[in-house]
């Protein structure tokens, strides 16, 4: 009998540990990675000719990042690693892939999706100006390209990444003008119960805040973004200031030359959707997520999820979840696995779940802001669909949920397929119709999950 084909999508913490577990069991997994180099986003590697040490790039997580990269290099001969390869669709038990304009189809017996996450975005007027980037993007510029997004950036949003990125910029010699957090101190205290489950991580976060404060960086909590103002200088048009309101409703204006914004993360779930895995509403994050059991098994036999693509729990949890999903996959195929190791990984994930709940409670997605966005605010940056357009879909056009609104006004129809606007768009619709966010639904995924070249070589069989 031929060895089963197990495909791992993604080569971040979850994908790497899944592949390693499969290779240890004597299989040769195929790893599909959209990136040029293994590591994923949080442990993204710099290009080969860069020389900064891991401690400069990953801060307190340097040891974890280095271990993940080194372990992967040791695996290279026992896995079929395919960088710059996108899984863009599904046909039966085949994955449809593309690599540098070459199409291919890959049959799988088992599939572990570790597709990660992107920033969760709440738009504000002016967020499409040049110089405004996502928080994750601001970090990638620094980590993978040794560039700052500006000389005097403002970081705005909520979540631990806000402080990590601001701290990393400070370390790189770029002092942020301000760190503006939409969560209030009272809200953060509410999350403390869960956050205390991982004391070292909590202490690290507090250290970042203390370092920023000591360096004279303005830290404000409980803020509300009003708009990003443009700066015009000859032909140049880019971000020039952030206007925001403090907890008491007073308006402030902070001059800057760049803005990094993000409100926690959202899972990349398109492939699970195309595979027809069941989804359920997750009240904690106000998102629809694929249903998995404690090991990452989905409602579809042979398909497993691990890492932030299954719900945001961070890199350490992703490593455990990747290994656990791979063991479960092997077990479901009737192969011998060490039950003790599975029990150990499940136990390791327990505090991660509590921590995740603490994060979502302490640094919540500011969903109420959506209802107050001015009508002319661009929500879909691909096609400039505005908050007013979505309200028109909700009211006069009578869309009961987000997919109908998409059909009417094209929110989520653009090139990014709703990755940037989908969550905020649903909140605007829900508020305008007076329904719950659960009722507003989620944008259905469609292949290709990302744009493909119009001219693609190869025959799909």
């Amino acid at each position, binding site marked *: 009998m031929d060895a089963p084909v197990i495909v791992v999508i993604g080569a971040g913490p979850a994908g790497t540990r899944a592949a390693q577990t499969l290779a240890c069991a004597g299989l040769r997994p195929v790893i599909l990675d*959209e*990136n*040029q180099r293994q590591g994923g*986003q949080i442990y993204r590697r*710099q*290009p*080969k*000719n*860069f*020389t*900064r040490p891991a401690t*400069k790039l990953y801060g307190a997580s340097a040891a974890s990042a280095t271990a993940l990269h080194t372990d992967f290099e040791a695996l290279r001969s026992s896995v079929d690693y395919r960088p710059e390869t996108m899984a863009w669709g599904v046909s039966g038990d085949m994955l449809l892939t593309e690599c540098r304009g070459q199409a291919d189809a890959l049959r799988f017996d088992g599939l572990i999706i570790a597709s990660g996450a*992107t*920033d969760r975005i709440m738009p504000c007027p002016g967020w*499409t100006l*040049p*110089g*405004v*980037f*996502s928080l*994750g*993007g*601001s970090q*990638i*510029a*620094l980590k993978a*390209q*040794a*560039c*700052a*997004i*500006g*000389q005097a950036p403002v970081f705005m949003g909520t979540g631990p990444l806000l402080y990590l990125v601001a701290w990393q910029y400070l370390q*790189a*010699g*770029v002092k942020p003008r301000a760190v503006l957090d939409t969560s209030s101190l009272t809200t953060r205290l509410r999350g403390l119960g869960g956050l205390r489950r991982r004391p070292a991580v909590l202490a690290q976060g507090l250290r970042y805040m203390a370092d920023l404060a000591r360096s004279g960086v303005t830290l404000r909590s409980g803020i509300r973004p009003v708009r990003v103002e443009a700066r015009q*200088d*000859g*032909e*140049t*048009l*880019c971000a020039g200031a952030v206007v925001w309101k403090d907890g008491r409703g007073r308006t402030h204006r902070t001059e800057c*030359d*760049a803005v990094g914004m993000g409100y926690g993360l959202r899972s*990349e779930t398109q492939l699970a959707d195309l595979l027809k895995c069941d989804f359920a509403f997750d009240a904690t994050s106000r998102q629809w997520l694929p249903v998995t059991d404690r090991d990452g098994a989905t409602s579809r036999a042979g398909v497993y999820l691990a890492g932030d693509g299954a719900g945001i729990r961070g890199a350490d949890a992703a490593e455990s979840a990747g290994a656990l999903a791979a063991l479960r996959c092997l077990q479901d195929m009737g192969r011998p696995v060490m039950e003790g190791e599975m029990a150990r990984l499940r136990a390791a994930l327990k505090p991660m779940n509590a921590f995740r709940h603490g994060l979502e409670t302490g640094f919540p997605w500011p969903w109420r802001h959506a209802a107050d966005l001015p009508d002319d605010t661009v929500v879909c*940056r*691909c*096609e*400039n669909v505005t908050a007013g357009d979505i309200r028109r879909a909700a009211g006069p056009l009578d869309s009961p949920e987000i997919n109908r609104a998409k059909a009417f006004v094209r929110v989520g129809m*653009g*090139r*990014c397929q709703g*990755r*940037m606007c989908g969550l905020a768009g649903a909140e605007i619709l829900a508020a305008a119709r007076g329904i719950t966010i659960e009722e507003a639904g989620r944008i259905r995924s469609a292949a290709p999950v*990302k*744009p493909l*070249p119009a001219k693609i070589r190869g025959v799909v069989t």
Partner: protein
Amino acid sequence: MTGLFRRVAETGRPEIAITVDGHAVTALEGDTILTALLVAGDRLRFNEFDKMPRAGFCLMGACQDCRVWTEDGHELRACSTSVTPGLRIVTKEVPWTRP
């Protein structure tokens, strides 16, 4: 034109000459197209709907707002494509001509 990005390290890499909208731009080996264009300038493209400048957003291949064109009409995602010597980029869409 001033650049949006500022290099903070890794500046000793070999230079690579590329062309942006007909002007010579010096990039460094290992730069993405996005980095090279935003160190030298303040935009990558113009939005098709309001014609306003855009400079990318997510830098991780998700938002698709960093798509640029080569002079011969190929579309590239600037955040995930490395510069190569002689690359010729335009920040405005090339008018379609009949073959």
